[in-house]
């Protein structure tokens, strides 16, 4: 499986963990972004993700490369789902490993923060009475 990956299939935490596991890297941190059932107290039915895939993969790779070099990681994987994602399922999984835990925590948080700023992926929240592109308006 690819380390930097966009798919309309369900994501697997175990696959991400296996991809970064290493006998020399004791500290492994995983972030899982699940689809929440509400936003600002309004019930969400599902999310619909769209990506500009070639550029999204490139930007995800940049994040992983920067994280690996800045925190001296063994490795980082970023898997993002697109299409309709039901409540409770994973929209994104980021996993990384390093000899020591502090680096893995810092790198994983950096990666999800940066992904949300730079990677060309858009989500639409679908409600019973309409839909909204998240963050589009100030």
């Amino acid at each position, binding site marked *: 499986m690819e380390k930097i990956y966009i798919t309309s299939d369900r994501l697997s935490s175990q696959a991400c963990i296996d991809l970064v596991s290493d006998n020399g890297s004791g500290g492994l941190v995983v972030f899982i972004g699940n689809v929440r059932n509400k936003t600002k107290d309004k019930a969400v039915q599902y999310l619909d*993700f769209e990506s500009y895939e070639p550029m999204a993969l490139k930007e995800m790779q940049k994040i992983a490369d920067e994280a690996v070099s800045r925190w001296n990681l063994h490795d980082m994987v970023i898997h993002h789902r697109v299409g309709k994602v039901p409540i409770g399922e994973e929209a994104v999984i980021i996993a990384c490993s390093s000899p020591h835990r502090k680096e893995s925590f810092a790198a994983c948080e950096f990666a999800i923060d940066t992904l949300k700023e730079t990677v*060309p992926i858009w989500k639409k929240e679908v409600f019973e009475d309409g839909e909204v*592109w*998240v963050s589009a308006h100030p």
Partner: protein
Amino acid sequence: MKVKITAFGIAKDIVGGKHLELEVNGQELSLVRKDLISQFPDFEKLASLKFAVNTNYVDDSYQLNENDEVVLIPPVSGG
């Protein structure tokens, strides 16, 4: 020159489709922004509108080449 444009997310809704061609009077990308806003005033309501060419972010001073595909990047919201 004729500029090919691809739109994602809310930008696709604003221009009414994924693809669009625009005739601009010059090579600077800033002209594309100006023309888009005048044709589709809803772009002014967005929190931001970035452009990409060849899968890279470019700024408004970018000089367009023949066959460049300009991609509209409204505020991203992955994760």
